């Protein structure tokens, strides 16, 4: 009972702190940055499933983020449909994309899978530019409204903050249930040995398609949230650069964990917005960080690979093991 309480207390406190955030943060900019953190927690949870649990790689995840953003944006602006329909469209279209991307994954592994998914990402980026009537082409798609249910609008920064974190919390809860039970074990088995997984009666083809699809849908949901938060989407957002950052979050977070990638996503999202959390950071210093952003990520990945190959989750596991041995 006591152990159970100890295990749940930190989660409850974190949840409470996040929910109460808008009460003591009156900096609009910081709230917006924290909303981006929530959006990235949603997408990185999908990456954690795909990469950290099932051992598959996608270098084209920005495409699903884009599909979600455009589907939601197009539905709510051009078609004038309600927000919830836009979100639904984002889920459906990213799911279709996920199934399409799963097809090469059935035949390819490792580097070859990385190349195929990278190709998919680039293909979709060009599609976003060329499908002008839907996406607005290089100029982008603007005037996307804030999420709204009936007459209840969730405006930035507080409304979108609470919505994004609400969805992130729900996603983490549902995905945690998946990874701790039968499907999660099957994914880890797939990661460990495909032959072994088949010998346990796991339909590895069906499992890969499911994992790719779920992970794509989470990226699509994140994309929809992004579109309604920013109000404007353009193709340059959904580039290889973003896909690489997502992989960085998953790698730094470590495999076989949801908390690790969520923490990594939080830290890495804050890098280009350092001025929001470090008061008094000079403009020049911020400009320097933003100019060197990609290099900072690259450096972090190299350092993690060299000194902490288990990433954040590996570090937490070691800490727990030390605590257990000490008691």
């Amino acid at each position, binding site marked *: 009972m006591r152990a159970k309480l100890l295990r749940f207390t930190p989660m409850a406190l974190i949840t409470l702190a996040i929910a109460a955030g808008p009460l003591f943060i009156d900096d609009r900019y910081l709230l917006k940055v924290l909303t981006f953190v929530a959006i990235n927690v949603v997408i990185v949870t999908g990456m954690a499933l795909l990469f950290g649990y099932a051992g598959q790689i996608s270098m084209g995840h920005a495409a699903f983020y884009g599909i979600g953003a455009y589907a939601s944006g197009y539905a709510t602006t051009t078609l004038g449909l309600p927000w919830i329909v836009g979100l639904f469209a984002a889920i459906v279209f990213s799911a279709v994309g996920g199934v399409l991307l799963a097809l090469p994954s059935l035949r390819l592994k490792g580097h070859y899978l990385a190349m195929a998914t990278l190709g998919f990402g680039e293909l979709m980026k060009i599609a976003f530019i060329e499908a002008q009537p839907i996406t607005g082409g290089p100029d982008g798609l603007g005037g996307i409204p804030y999420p709204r249910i009936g007459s209840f609008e969730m405006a930035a920064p507080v409304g979108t903050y609470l919505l994004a974190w609400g969805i992130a919390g729900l996603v983490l809860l*549902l*995905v945690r*249930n*998946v990874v701790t*039970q*039968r*499907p*999660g*074990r*099957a994914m*880890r*088995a797939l*990661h*460990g*040995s495909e*032959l*072994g*997984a*088949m*010998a*346990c*009666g*796991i*339909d*590895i083809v069906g499992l890969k398609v*499911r994992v790719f699809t*779920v992970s794509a849908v989470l990226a699509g949901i994140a994309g929809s949230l992004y579109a309604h938060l920013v109000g404007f989407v353009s193709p340059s957002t959904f580039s290889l650069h973003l896909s690489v950052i997502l992989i960085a979050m998953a790698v730094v977070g470590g495999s*076989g964990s949801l908390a690790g990638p969520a923490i990594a996503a939080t830290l890495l999202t804050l890098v280009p917005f350092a001025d929001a959390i470090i008061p008094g950071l000079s403009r020049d210093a911020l400009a320097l960080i933003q100019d060197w952003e990609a290099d900072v990520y690259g450096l972090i990945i190299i350092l993690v690979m060299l000194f902490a190959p288990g990433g954040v989750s590996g570090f937490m596991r070691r800490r727990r093991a030390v605590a257990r041995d000490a008691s």
Partner: protein
Amino acid sequence: MSLLEVRDVTRRFGGLTAVDNVSFDVHEGSIKAIIGPNGAGKSTLFNVLTGFDQPCEGTVSFKGSELTGERPHKVVLRGVARTFQNTQLFEEMTALENVLVGRHARTKTGFLAAALRLPGTRSEERLARQEAERLLRLVGLEEWSESPAADMPHGLRRLLEIARALATGPTLMLLDEPAAGLNNSETSRLADALYRIRDAGVTLVVVEHDMGLVMEISDEIVVLDRGSKIAEGPPRLIQKDPEVLRAYLGQEADDE
């Protein structure tokens, strides 16, 4: 009654005939060994029997209906489990989790049911755990239940793979060189486990190099050489079979 019927199975790789027109039966409740020198086609035959490979010609029937053409996970669902010559454990998962993955075939909880914790998922999980713990005890690995497979000694890893195969609820289990790399005490522990498994109603087919073990445990032996079956019968007869002696010792039987 014959549980597994192998009929005229041939598997060619390019110009090489790895398995050449092999037929034999496996009877329910027995332990059958497949032996032969390196490169005799034992592992290829194993892959064909378990859906990991398909024969060019011939058929495999299990409980009277055809097994050829089924994908590996379907073969497992039909009640045929296997282990591998190079153990295929899930290294980062604990021994208990490895066996729990073996329960995959006999449980149902999918993505949606797991995410929403639908009624039934919790009790299914609890029953699966009980069964996995029971199987770990059966092979004598209960003390290792929380250790990652990667941390276990070689001999125990083979037992763990057997427990995982058992978790799939098989009627027939195929073991690919279960004694490879085991010392004497580990081998006798393995033999004990195999008897317990057979007594629990699981028919066994064993590919093995350890002749002591093969002669001790098997009811019948199939001898392969360069892809063909050269002999079949009880251990006592196989030991004296001139063809077998020639294949193993490389001498002409009538040189003696």
